[in-house]
């Protein structure tokens, strides 16, 4: 079967939406009957550009990801908002983001105000960086950021109605 790029995009997005719908169907039984909170999230990407300003100093700025080629640094920003009328429980908002294929996480770039950030080497088990180790020629060593396959943020405060916050991380396109 041959798919055009647009076809592939459409199918990708459709599958994602389908997965969400299915999850809603099967998890409906455990929903609180009185819950009216509705947290939405928005995922976006920008390119990080390094440039020299008029003073000759090197600066970094965020641009629309107009043209993305290998070697470019990208920043993914996930914004989440409580659009409901109930308060979201403290320590209950958990954002999980696998590192996109063909990219590598850039060390110490994960950010999230009021969050605890943990990482995973397999997408299943999450821990702080110092607890992530790999075997290198028979010796257990700390894993490098390039080996992280997923990031998880745990938002510690309550998220009151109308409030929003965001998390972000940077990768480099291989």
């Amino acid at each position, binding site marked *: 079967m041959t798919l055009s*790029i*647009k076809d*592939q*995009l459409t199918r*990708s*997005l459709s599958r*994602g939406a389908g*997965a*969400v719908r299915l*999850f*809603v169907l099967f*998890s*409906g039984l*455990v*929903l*609180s009957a*009185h*819950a009216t*909170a509705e*947290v*939405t*999230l*928005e*995922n*976006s*990407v920008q390119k990080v550009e390094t440039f020299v300003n008029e003073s000759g100093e090197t600066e970094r700025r965020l641009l*629309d*990801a*107009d*043209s*993305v*080629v*290998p*070697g470019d640094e990208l920043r*993914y920003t*996930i914004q*989440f908002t409580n659009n*409901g009328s*109930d*308060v*979201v*429980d403290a320590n*209950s*908002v*958990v*954002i*999980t*983001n*696998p590192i*996109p*294929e*063909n*990219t590598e996480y850039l060390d110490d770039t994960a950010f999230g105000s009021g969050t605890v950030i943990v990482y995973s080497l397999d997408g299943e088990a999450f821990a702080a960086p110092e607890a992530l180790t790999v075997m290198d020629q028979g010796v257990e060593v700390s894993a490098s950021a390039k080996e992280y396959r997923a990031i998880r943020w745990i938002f510690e405060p309550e*998220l009151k109605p109308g409030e929003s916050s965001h998390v972000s991380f940077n990768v480099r*396109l*291989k």
Partner: protein
Amino acid sequence: MHYFTRLTRLLVAGLGLTLALPALAVGTDAGLLITNDVTLNYQVNGGVQPEQSDSVTFVVDRKLELLVAAADADWVSVPINQEFTDTPPLSSVPALNFLVSNLSNADVDVVFGVVAQGAVAITGFTNDPSATDTGVDGVLVAIDSNGNNVYDEGVDAVLTPTGDTYSLPAALSRDPASNAVSILVVADIAATAVNGDYEAFSLVAGVASAPGDPYERDDSGNLVPGTALAATNNADDPALEQAVFADFFASVDPENIGYDFVGDAPTGSVDEIYDGQSSDTSGYAITGVDVLIAKYAEVIYDPISENKYSAAGAPTGEEPKAIPGAVIMYVIGVTNLDTAFDAEGISIVDNVPDGAGPVELVDEGNQTGATVNVPSQVTVDFDLTNPGTTTEDFDLSAVSDQSVITSSSCGAVPVVGTTNFVAAVGPDPTTDPEVVVDLGTCAFGNAGFIVYFVTVETNG
């Protein structure tokens, strides 16, 4: 004749060869979709809420980057009057070597411009600030198909230009195992060039969307030299593979220039960043002298008619024929056309098909002892392509038909009335069919020759 000439030149000209490894291409393939999926879970009053998710996707764009690197470590030695247009097939012709690598994340077509820059200094080479340029009569560009760093006609694939722009016949792969191509630039050096002259050539490679169709701009606000198009910095289309010039490193060497593939002419200015091009420069140095060699033959005796060579001029109808038993005289002339430099170590080697061939070298040219006439003078033409333009007269008055080989050291031309004949120095003709004569040094403007005789075999 040029073929023999070239062999002689190679005896006095050095040839430097170097090898270079292709640069490695890296990067995610253009056109690949990169999707980021994120999920969010939360609770309200202890109750688990529906998981939320969102995705963002973009297409990896075409990072277009070529790298041209001259593979020659220094000026490439070339003989005076190197030619390639009129003497096929050519073999092992000195050439400038360039390695063109595709560092893009996609296969890419490539166009080339070749710019002769005269005696400009080349960074890293051994330069002579006072050098003058050789002048160029023509250029040939080829893919070094057999990878031997020299041009071999019929082996290396010649690129035919459109105007002055050359194109690779197929896209250059992005695969690191095959992302480089060796390009040869062969020059037809002007006949006026002399020892010590230089000629630099810049090879400029530009990215193209199809063979012979160079990019004029990318989607990131960059233009190629000479285009009339306006720069466009298009917003990213996540479903479209856009083009981005990524030649971040402009050349720091002033001899590396840009090329206007739109107007099909060099820009005259240095290679810039993000212009979809890369260039590098190598060059030729004349390190040889213009030594030519040519062979002259004359039937001087025919045992059937007993006709003998009489004199140069119009046929009389009584000329001896090259029949079995006939005596043939060969004259091999050498001339140094350089105006400033001597040619040293000149050695003439000529194969004679002794015994099994149609002629044999005999201990006496006139085997039968018949009375024959040896021409008193012959005129040897060194350029059969342009008859009569390069000739030398050789005086044979001291040559005996009873000699095996007679040689004359180089002397001032016209070589008339030569008296410096020396004893024959050839090998034993019964065991070694080669005539080998060491003429030694031939000063600029001088000429010399050897003479030997054979008989046409009578036994078949």
